[in-house]
């Protein structure tokens, strides 16, 4: 009824204003309905319709010259439009900056202070608007909301300087001394909206709280990464104490756990991680962090258990809740970064981490089982669920195969290891150089031997070791020979000229090449020793020592063989050298090698080095004493 009478009144502007205002309120209520409606498709449609309605309304309002009575409504519509748009798109874009700028220019147009329309930055516009707004007190509540949106935009694009200036002006610029954004955000108190103001999707105070939490969390995370831990702790505490949605709270607690772990407070860290795990469905990051914590504490069982739980947690695709139609803390967080401590990867990455940790800690059976699971997960494409490989952060796919084979050999499942190697070779057979017909060309000496990826050689090496375990000496020796054949064709200088697009760069270093050659030679030598062909063995051990002088294992094997063949002088010379070397601090080069190679080297490690040295010492000293 009142609507009718307003329509009939003789003032066209007033009725227009009322109509627009009713439309705005109706749209806001519709957005709330959309928010509450459970069906996601329906919800999406409703929200889109509302967005279009707001856009249309904004067009009609801005179609007329700006006048002061309409401005509060116009700015409210702009704010609602931005909020809905950003929450639907899940992020800010350049469009929002333009929307805000247009709103500000309209405010200035009514003040006739627009002056020469030069290129004005957004900050200069804000400055003039806020100065002009002292003349228009009725604009203040909605201007604060718009300023909050501007601050959110600047926060999400990392323009913290502009944000600080804006907040200073909003707070009444006396506090120019205080540059700290957190403090500025805390002291900013937006005026309450009047009860008869047009409806908004989110009020300025709520937005302020969201900004405060998001900024504190961002700051804390950044400090955590750069290593200023006490500051990070402060900021994160601040973030945790504010109103914070559950998924974000889980992240904040996890970050607190990381921070405390790095500061040497494992017990407190554990408390936070437990709190994070209680927090909600996204249990990945706290579990990963817990595994790191247990690893640091040396509790391997607990570490592996948390990793297992992590794999389990990541296998559940938790249906993400539909985001609220508001500016939320999540929207203002930085893009997830693999370097961040909160990055927990995918299920296959977690599985790989678990398997490799098992292998490293000597639980071979578990490792083998986990590796087989991982391969099944990666290769089985019958399952519709998506499971990305550990690339690009982890080792490349061939290395995962090699690690699996190594774990199987370690667990005593040589036959399975052979199958894995065969699978690797057959799947990549088309990529390998064509050996058969090149064989003849290479013998003619006219052509360069083909380049082959290192992991192909490594596959043959592991196959040889598997045959060793199965007791098939002949096959083993032939695999080792084939491996050496390939390895000696690789000339480190020209490695860049090969086919450019393999992922070998991760494993193709000179060190790896050297160690592989030494390992293959030692393995073959050991086989010769086992079959009693000591001269052949001696040859291989000698070569391996020349190949890789730093590898003491080769020297020990050589020493043993020399002693066996009773070549005392050479043995004595070698012993002196070895004795000198063992007195030097051992370089920890082994740990930069790929995991499969580390495992492999542990197999050909001479079991009784100290005893051998001691034995030699006595046998050498005896003649001297005599």
């Amino acid at each position: 009824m009142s609507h009718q009478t307003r329509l009939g009144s003789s003032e066209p502007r007033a009725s227009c204003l009322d109509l627009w205002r009713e439309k705005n309120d109706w749209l806001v209520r519709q957005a709330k309905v959309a928010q509450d409606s459970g069906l996601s498709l329906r919800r999406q449609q409703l929200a889109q319709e509302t967005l279009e309605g707001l856009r249309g309304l904004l067009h009609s309002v801005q179609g007329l010259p700006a006048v002061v009575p309409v401005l509060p409504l116009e700015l409210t519509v702009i704010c609602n439009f931005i909020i809905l748009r950003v929450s639907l798109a899940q992020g800010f874009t350049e469009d929002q900056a333009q929307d805000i700028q247009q709103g500000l220019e309209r405010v200035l147009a009514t003040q006739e202070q627009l002056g020469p329309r030069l290129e004005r930055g957004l900050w200069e516009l804000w400055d003039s608007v806020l100065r002009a707004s002292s003349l228009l007190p009725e604009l203040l509540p909605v201007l604060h909301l718009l300023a909050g949106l501007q601050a959110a935009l600047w926060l999400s694009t990392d323009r913290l300087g502009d944000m600080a200036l804006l907040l200073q002006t909003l707070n009444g610029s006396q506090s120019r001394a205080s540059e700290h954004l957190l403090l500025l955000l805390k002291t900013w108190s937006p005026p309450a909206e009047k009860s008869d103001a047009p409806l908004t999707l989110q009020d300025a105070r709520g937005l302020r709280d969201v900004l405060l939490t998001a900024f504190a969390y961002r700051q804390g995370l950044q400090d955590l990464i750069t290593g200023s831990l006490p500051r990070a702790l402060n900021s994160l505490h601040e973030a945790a104490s504010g109103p914070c949605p559950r998924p974000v709270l889980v992240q904040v607690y996890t970050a607190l756990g990381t921070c405390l772990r790095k500061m040497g407070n494992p017990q407190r860290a554990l408390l936070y991680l437990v709190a994070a795990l209680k927090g909600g469905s996204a249990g990945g990051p706290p579990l990963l962090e817990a595994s790191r914590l247990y690893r640091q504490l040396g509790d391997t069982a607990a570490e592996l258990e948390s990793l297992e739980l992590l794999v389990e947690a990541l296998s559940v695709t938790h249906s993400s809740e539909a985001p609220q139609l508001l500016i939320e803390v999540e929207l203002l967080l930085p893009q997830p970064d693999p370097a961040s401590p909160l990055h927990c990867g995918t299920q296959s990455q977690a599985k790989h981490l678990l398997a490799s940790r098992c292998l490293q800690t000597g639980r071979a059976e578990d490792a083998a089982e986990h590796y087989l699971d991982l391969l099944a997960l990666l290769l089985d494409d019958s399952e519709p669920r998506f499971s990305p490989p550990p690339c690009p952060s982890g080792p490349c796919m061939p290395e995962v195969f090699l690690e699996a084979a190594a774990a199987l050999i370690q667990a005593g499942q040589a036959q399975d290891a052979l199958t894995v190697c065969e699978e690797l070779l057959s799947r990549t057979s088309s990529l390998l150089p064509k050996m058969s017909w090149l064989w003849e060309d290479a013998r003619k000496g006219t052509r360069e031997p083909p380049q082959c990826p290192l992991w192909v050689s490594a596959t043959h090496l592991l196959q040889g070791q598997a045959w060793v375990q199965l007791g098939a000496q002949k096959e083993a020796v032939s695999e080792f020979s084939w491996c050496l054949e390939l390895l000696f064709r690789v000339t480190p200088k020209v490695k860049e000229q090969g086919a450019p697009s393999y992922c070998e760069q991760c494993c193709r270093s000179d060190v790896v090449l050297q160690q592989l050659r030494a390992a293959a030679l030692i393995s073959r030598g050991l086989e010769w020793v086992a079959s009693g062909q000591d001269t052949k063995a001696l040859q291989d051990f000698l070569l391996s020592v020349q190949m890789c002088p730093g590898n003491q294992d080769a020297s020990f094997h050589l020493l043993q063989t020399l002693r066996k063949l009773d070549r005392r002088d050479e043995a004595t010379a070698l012993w002196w050298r070895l004795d000198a070397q063992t007195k030097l601090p051992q370089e920890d080069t082994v740990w930069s090698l790929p995991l499969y190679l580390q495992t492999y080297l542990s197999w050909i490690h001479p079991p009784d080095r100290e005893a051998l040295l001691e034995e030699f010492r006595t046998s050498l000293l005896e003649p001297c004493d005599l």
Partner: protein
Amino acid sequence: MQLFECPCPGEDPHPGGQIGEVQLSACTPPGGVPGKPEVPGKPEVPRFLPVLCCALPPGSRVPHGHLWGSGGFMLEEALFGLLFGADATLLESPVILCGLPDGQLCCVVLKALVTSKSAPGDLKALVKILHHLEEPVIFIGALRTKHWAEEEVENVHSDCLVALGHRGRTLAIKAGWDESGNLVPELREYSLPGPVLCAACGGGSRMYHSTPSDLCVVDLAHGGTPMDPEEPDGRSGGLPPLLFPASLSICSVVTLSVSSRAPKGSAELLALSAKGRLMTCSLDLNSEVPGPAKMTRADAGQRIKELLSGIGNVSERVSFLKKAVDQRNKALTSLNEAMNVSCALLSSREGPRPVSCTTTIAWSRLELQDVLMATCLLENSSGFSLDQGWTLCIQVLSSPSALDLDSAGSAITYTMPVDQLSPGSRREVILPLGPGENGMLELPVTVSCTLFYNLREVVGGALAPSDSFEDTFLDECLPTVLPEQEGVCLPLGRHTVDMLQCLRFPGLASPRTQAPCPLGATTDPVDTFLETLREPGSEPAGPASLRARYLPPSAASIRVSAELLRAALEEGHSGVSLCCATLQWLLAENAAVDMVRAQALSSIQGVAPDGSDIHLIVREVAVTDLCLAGPLQAVEIQVESSSLADMCRTHHAIIGRMQMMVMAQAAQRSSPPDLRVQYLRQIHANHEMLLQEVQTLRDRLCTEDEASSSATAQRLLQVYGQLRSPSLVLL
């Protein structure tokens, strides 16, 4: 690029099933869009879209037909591994190939994709750039370059990847082995005739591509060119060093598809032309050179179909050209007419003009308000018609307000298209002149009419490109064809509306023209003011008597010699006294002139537009001391009004009429009566003195303070009054 899960039937339709996303660095195409100059400040409309397709490793369990339908293909193992790496091969992952408008050819391993939420990686690191074509990528496809026996074909996958750019640059990639047996990519770039609109590949070694003028087929099979000396024998076939496109004589195909149901040895194309014709073309690929020119004789029906389709193509083109020619002819005709009209108008300086515009003034009542309306009548009495392109422009220019010295007069221009004004016809346009929003009508108002011929509207329409492929060059030359100014402007006439035309006479009793007082029942603020001014105790008096007491009406007078007037007014006013004739002459353009004539009035009481009263009195006087020969017969026109401004406006209007009359009379006769020169001189000297005093008073007015300036203003008013009632007579 975002990947979404395709919901399986029976599953919950959940739209948020995003399974991966990746960022492609999209740059603007190099050198802008071809054929269109960059428009600064205007966002360019992207004409090229990215091209997407999916490459599968061999052994993927995807139904074959489904694969081709969705733009995917299976690549041979070696080529797949070479292009996409060992990881993709090991995982047997499909790969998305993407051709961007800036020429980049990128690939993304599908199984490596993750959503940014679940496992954020470096979103750009997942994208590998295979090649840069340096022109917008139009098509990505795969070919089988080796010839296979029919039974094998099902199991053989494509061994060559091709990408086609907009300007015809073509990239073909095959896997090869170098001397040492290493797998190396064999890349070759070709240049095909462009601009390419679309392309398609069948299952074989042929690629079809369409340009605006032709549809071509090229064969990338190695067998086509056996005479390459550098290729060592025994090696599996490389790529041909050159491509020879064969024409199929079909133009402007915008979408092309190779049908998979054609029998072995022939191909069937499905093509959609720019004009919307859907064609099927059957090609016999067994003949040595593909193309309809070498059709086998047995396939006569096919040939006839081909010819018919060619005829269809030609007729399509002809109809387009015909349309363009028609449009240009129409524009030329219109230009010719316009030329004739312009010549006729510009050559007839004297006498009645072939196209004229006359303006008349009348009061009418609109929305409770009296409005002065001007009626402009455009009359075409020439032999040509005014057609499309002509516009009538009417400019209404009001004089600056007397109260506001700074304001310039306002000017409003109305433009109306003249649609088809054939010879002898007329068109009427009615415009409101005022009073405006502030209730003021600033007289005099000048109404000037102009005819405008819009060249751009007529010629531009004919030259505008209507076919996006063929006529882009016209688009560029358009600005040079048209002259700087956009049209021809022909002034038709000018009419000045002064006070005499706007006076209304409510006193002349006639029901038709009786207009109520514009101010209605509201009391005049001046009257109210005078009422309060009245001394207390004195007798109440009506407003009229108060006015008479406090505000004596301003007055001005003009004297004209009777002889002069008689000579000027002799036609049409015989039998009427000179005074009546003069009054009729003054009000000739007023609507009330008929009443004045009927009642033979020599004095009249009128109302100005703002409501103040105007009294015009015409009487005969004798001027004694001017002429030597004795008293001179003269007519005195006296203007009286309570409003000084209205009096001035009326005076100004009368003087204007007099000036025009004297000018006209002076051309005909020149015998002024003998005058007493001495007397004239004295009057002249008096006037000079008065003018001087005006000057000094005005100067003083600028410098003085408020108190003394009112006295000066008072004096100035008196001097103006003296100047306005001169003792001179117009002779």
